[in-house]
């Protein structure tokens, strides 16, 4: 059949229910799978429903319900304030320590929660993987979005705290969405790697809580990055969460810290870091995706 004939056939299809060319070809993928992010977009309604399910179900059958969202960061803040603010006198760059810590805990908890959810998302939903087809990327993605709800609730508490301590919101707040996005992408990048690895190696399930704990101390959550000697500060660039956490403080508390030459470099290096992890994570996820159903 030549091309013109083929075109005619395709035209016919608009009236005819049975297409002449296959709408779907199934065969083994060799080499590099395309990322096919378009498929994720086509399934956005499913993403929406999964996020909605997560949100709806999360605090069901708990006495405190939504209060848990607030309780976690607030209790951490109180403990940190007593321990690091009062006892150890960790410098908080001129801001009351509770706000200083809470502002950092907010994006950190979001990141930690998202990473935990996305890395465990595949193994906790085996029936979605073995019984039905849709782009698997949707599963780790849904955790990122559902955690935004928790983030939003905890953010309201921050506004209350800022009001209490009389901290003015400045125009720097406009960078906040960008920082949230950065936290999401960081969680997604690492989450994709860990979720895909988790399908084969359940060690990941034990690794993640430990990893998050260590990572928190490597991130300026309970201390400020000014505490680290200038010559070692480039190390912070390896951790994109530094930019997120310090950025949060900067944009909300109006600190002047990150305007130096070093901080620009840290920002750029962090962005490169996130891009590398995210892109390799996507590729790795897509490459291993086809074996999920066989080994989960």
């Amino acid at each position, binding site marked *: 059949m030549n091309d013109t004939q083929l075109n005619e056939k395709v035209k016919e299809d608009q009236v005819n229910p049975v297409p002449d060319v296959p*709408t779907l070809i199934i065969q083994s993928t060799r080499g590099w799978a395309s990322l096919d992010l378009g498929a994720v977009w086509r399934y956005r309604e499913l993403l929406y429903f*999964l996020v909605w*399910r997560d949100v709806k179900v999360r605090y069901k059958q708990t006495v405190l319900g939504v209060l848990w969202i607030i309780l976690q960061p607030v209790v951490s803040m109180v403990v940190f304030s007593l321990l690091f603010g009062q006892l150890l006198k960790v410098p908080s760059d001129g801001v009351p320590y509770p706000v200083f810590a809470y502002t950092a805990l907010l994006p950190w908890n979001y990141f930690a929660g998202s990473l935990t959810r996305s890395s465990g998302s595949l193994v906790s939903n085996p029936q979605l993987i073995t*019984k*039905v087809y849709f782009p698997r990327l949707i599963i780790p993605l849904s955790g990122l979005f559902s955690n935004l709800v928790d983030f939003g609730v905890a953010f309201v508490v921050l506004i209350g705290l800022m009001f209490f301590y009389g901290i003015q919101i400045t125009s720097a707040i406009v960078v906040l969405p960008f920082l949230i996005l950065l936290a999401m992408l960081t969680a997604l990048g690492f989450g994709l790697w860990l979720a895909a690895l988790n399908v084969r190696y359940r060690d990941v399930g034990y690794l993640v809580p430990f990893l998050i704990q260590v990572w928190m101390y490597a991130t300026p959550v309970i201390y400020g990055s000014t505490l680290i000697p200038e010559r070692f500060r480039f190390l912070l660039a390896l951790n994109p969460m530094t930019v997120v956490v310090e950025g949060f403080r900067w944009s909300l508390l109006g600190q002047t810290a990150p305007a130096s030459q070093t901080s620009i470099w840290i920002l750029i290096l962090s962005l490169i870091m996130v891009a590398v992890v995210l892109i390799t994570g996507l590729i790795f996820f897509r490459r291993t995706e086809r074996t999920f159903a*066989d*080994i989960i």
Partner: protein
Amino acid sequence: MSNIALRVDNLSKLYHIGASLQHYATLRDVLAGWLTKPLRRTRPDRASKNGRQPDTIWALKDVSFEIRPGEVVGIIGRNGAGKSTLLKILSQITEPTYGRAEIFGRVSSLLEVGTGFHPELTGRENIYLNGAILGMRRAEINRKFDEIVAFAEIEKFLDTPVKHYSSGMYVRLAFAVAAHLEPDILIVDEVLAVGDAAFQKKCLGKMGDVATEGRTVLFVSHNMGAIRSLCERSILLMDGQLEIDGPTQAIVNAYLLSVTTMKGDKGEIHWAGGEEAPGCDEVRLSSIHLISHTGKVQNTFQLDKSIVVEVTYIVHKPLRGMRIVLKLKTEEGVIAFASTDHNQQPAELQPGRYMSTVTVPGGILNRNKYYIHLSVDIPGVKVLIPGTEYLSLTCIGESAHGSNFPENWPGVFALRLEWSFERLDSMD
């Protein structure tokens, strides 16, 4: 217009047994594997020559067929014949090792009812969630919502969390959502095996409607009755290969014939233990015996004499609330009866070797072939050994049904019932 809805060409799938039996590896195993790798011969063909189990298995091998639009095709075969693998490949859940399939039109798969149902969500919420998972758009669900609810007969409980549903309601709702998919090609796995008889009938009716609407349907079932009533054409798979393809009646007969030549046909089956024996880390079967009233192991029994089924198994870890479930099935896959030792089992079973025995009294079964189907589970908690047909038995002899005329007598059972006879009146 194309006269093909689905074309399958040399579709094959190789499974690594290590990966499929052992559901996950730990990093430690992998590291240990790397260290010892140079010392082992890992080529699968070598391994099998050495008398060990081969490391790989072709779950599907060079399967080719074509289906025309509007055809309703049954896929039959024993457990492990490759039916589910075929459906999983066609549903894009897993990839073939080689070969290809071409699908012409919108395809939907139904390999399980209620995928993604969340117990905490209400019926209404689960309809939307499950619909989205099955690939329906929200607008489409909105449009069919009332129909789905009516089909499932759950109007009153629409806003109750499904965890409070009876299992029947749950299944009805789950099937109702799936039944309202409107693809060009529908792929259905053994989903009718759930729910009560009335609902199964309703589902079959719905499936029949789908078939008459001109949709192409690929239908897997162990229920030969359902296959016969729905499919004009069937495909028989055996050991991953396409055995025959043709009119359903012929294929069903061929299937029934193939089932009779199964292994373990001498009234007993033994396992050496280890990974080979059916089971899991907690419990493994060790043997099954069929014993006649004279105490002999055999597979042919007199109708009027009892049959003893003896199951031995090894418990490796303490188990609470375990039970053995025996189902006696006919050749057509109908469950003649099911019975369990649950009430005899102690609350907690300590590690050790055990035997459960049951006696099927004489004067119940018909002149027929039956299959011993066993499963082990903790009800409501988990399935320890999934149900499988292990042995067959044939009943012969003077039938209890009330006649000695040599004929095939219908029915799953031939009960010895009391008839009375009397003359009421003389006509003269």
